[in-house]
């Protein structure tokens, strides 16, 4: 019989943890994004690969440098900045000049994340902050799209990709319009089959809805994403655009078109559902999703831009703290009391 001679550790309960961890959650989000990322590279070739690599590299480097400069241990190991880099890269036009990609990546992390206090404190989705700044700074480059599946996409680059910093990118002959732009400016509807599979032009990662949904379902199954957010966004978009479509099918796009075109899938699944910027209560999540869906339909239908998901999500992020406050649960044992008083 031996008596333990070593020191006993004293901690307060609970003495066991679920085993879930921030870095595991973040790593799984990265995993869920891999099919979409692979498809983006497959569809846009070298241009897609370079854009995504530059986006991730610039974001990770920025985070690491900021940690070093402020004397904190590097936080790139928690994978959250990798998600930011990937999402940011996936929302960019594949032929965007690489120097612009790098500038945007720096803005994502420096302005969108570090400035607010780092992981957990960033009110707005960092990837969208970077993208929004680019949209304002380089409106032409940010709306110049190349078609997917071009011949020779793995051997040659669009001339715009390697534009020198601070020079006007030369516009390629091979640009094409996104389905949303086609609808907005010439009322041309793209078939849903092409939209859902990703055989259209658009941002690097927004074209294949099927793969996006696949990644989302994986995260939902692992309880690493709140399904209420994408569900509420989709339901709102379908309801609103469906109602509009019924009143005048030639003027208003069909709900299916709205759902599968542009950045809605990617935004709803991976950006609106980002834990940091979304509400914590279930009711808050429904309201948040409804707001994003509503603003998206408003901008797409009556706004000057063909796409509005980005602004809708940023607005949703801004409202999140209020939604949380308004939708707090009634604490156990306080219901009867307040009803009586």
């Amino acid at each position, binding site marked *: *019989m031996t008596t*333990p001679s070593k020191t*006993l550790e*004293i901690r307060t309960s609970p*003495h066991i943890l679920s085993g879930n961890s921030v870095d595991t959650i973040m790593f799984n989000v990265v995993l869920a994004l891999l099919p979409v990322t692979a498809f983006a590279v497959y569809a846009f070739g070298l241009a897609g690969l370079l854009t995504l690599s530059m986006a991730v590299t610039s974001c990770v480097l920025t985070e690491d440098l900021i940690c070093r400069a402020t004397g904190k241990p590097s936080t790139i190991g928690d994978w959250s900045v990798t998600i930011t880099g990937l999402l940011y890269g996936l929302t960019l036009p594949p032929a965007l000049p690489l120097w612009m990609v790098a500038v945007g990546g720096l803005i994502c992390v420096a302005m969108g994340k570090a400035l607010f206090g780092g992981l957990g404190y960033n009110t707005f989705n960092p990837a969208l902050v970077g993208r929004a700044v680019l949209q304002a700074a380089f409106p032409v480059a940010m709306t110049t799209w190349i078609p997917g599946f071009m011949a020779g996409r793995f051997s040659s680059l669009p001339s715009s990709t390697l534009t020198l910093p601070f020079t006007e990118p030369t516009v390629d002959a091979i640009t094409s319009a996104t389905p949303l732009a086609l609808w907005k400016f010439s009322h041309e509807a793209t078939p849903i089959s092409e939209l859902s599979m990703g055989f259209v032009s658009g941002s690097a990662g927004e074209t294949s809805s099927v793969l996006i949904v696949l990644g989302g379902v994986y995260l939902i199954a692992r309880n690493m994403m709140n399904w209420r957010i994408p569900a509420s966004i989709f339901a709102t978009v379908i309801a609103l655009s469906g109602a509009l479509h019924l009143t005048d099918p030639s003027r208003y796009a069909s709900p299916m078109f709205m759902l599968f075109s542009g950045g809605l899938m990617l935004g709803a699944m991976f950006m609106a559902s980002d834990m940091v*910027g979304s509400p914590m209560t279930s009711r808050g999540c429904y309201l948040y999703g409804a707001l994003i869906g509503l603003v998206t339909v408003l901008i797409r239908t009556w706004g000057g831009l063909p796409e509005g998901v980005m602004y809708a999500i940023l607005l949703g992020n801004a409202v999140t703290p209020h939604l949380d406050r308004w939708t707090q*649960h009634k604490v156990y044992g306080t*219901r009867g009391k307040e009803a009586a008083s």
Partner: protein
Amino acid sequence: MRLLGTKTFRHGVHPPESKDETSGLSIRQFPFAPVLIIPLVQHMGAPSIPVVAEGDEVSRGQRIARADGFMSVSMHAPASGIVRRIALAPSIGGRMVPAVYLEPFPGSTQEVEDGTPCPLETSTPAEIIAAIQDAGVVGLGGAAFPTHVKLQVPEGKFVDTLIINGVECEPYLTTDHRVMLEQTDDVFTGIRYLLKVSGAKKVIIAVEANKPDAAEHLRERFPSDLNGCVEVLEVKYPQGAEKMLFAALLGREVPSGGLPLDIHALCCNVATTAEIGRLLPFGRGIQERVITVTGPAVKRKGNYRIPIGTPLRFLLEHVGVEEDVNRVFLGGPMMGAAASSLDISITKGTSGVTAFTDSAAERTHSPVYPCIRCGYCVDACPIFLDPSVLGRLAANEEFSVMAEQHHLMDCFECGSCSFVCPSHIPLVQRFRAAKTAVRKASAPKAGAAQ
């Protein structure tokens, strides 16, 4: 609220149950330690007053301390032996408390001494309450609240439903499970006493779905003249908290800061009920209790009937522990308190002894990340607090804001929020500190008003 045919409450968590290794093991009698150290404060309330002196010889079951007022209970000798000392002894939190050091006689037959019986049929409710206090009965689920205090229904109040808590949602522990299987008759006798005292018309025995044999066993033996039933509840932590039971079984909520009596309900742990049924007919007192000794570091796990006052060191030596043991708690891993020393002893409130090794403890050594607002804690909290917001306030020491605006004092420290937090923020630990600070801040004011 009903889900898949079993009742439950909203929210909660699903820790690994880890009960399989001991749930099938019958209760075994534990030997006497060379010296039993019986603290005179084993319950919530005033310390008991010793009625024996150093050098006295006592017989097993004899009263060795009497209650000091209503909020106190008697103590009984766990063994026939000699009182060596009445002196201070360490308690679970590290504080020194008065205790009786009893040295059992090695050759004694250890027969239990009976007291004045309290027959069920002829005793009045007041007599039963006095007998329960005299038997030293406290909540054996872990809270150690004097049972007779809970049973005292004040003028103008009434109880319609008695709930017998056999949920045992705490991982690892199988004490109540074994008691339900092996002391079934005691449980029903105890219920009859409790019904008579409380005036309740109906009894519900609540069992979690992971103990189907216990539920079946109780149903088969349920006396036909008792008005009540056995309810099987979904396996979910903290289903065994009485507030959760009222919500799940009756759809009622105890008002914030109120008592179960406010909703005409009463909840009693099944092991406590069994002790009442076992002791009162003979006028005996609690001198031992059933304890699950388990955990990855324990070699001979099991359910033991252990004399009160058994030193933790003797207990662990007897069951054997692994070399790399590094944490021992009294109770289970969700709400149990870490033992600060092996010199503390088993008390009436000890429902289990769990020992962990280094490797099993690894998961709690993870780095702390900032809150990522995942909302897991919000979905876990059984009383619908926002642990995320409370955690941020606690980090800034905004204790009064926590209490006044965010219902801090309603937290009963089940630990669900800390369990699920992927950032490993010690939420409930912070709330404990905050509650202590709030109580401290309000105490002088109360004193000044008197």
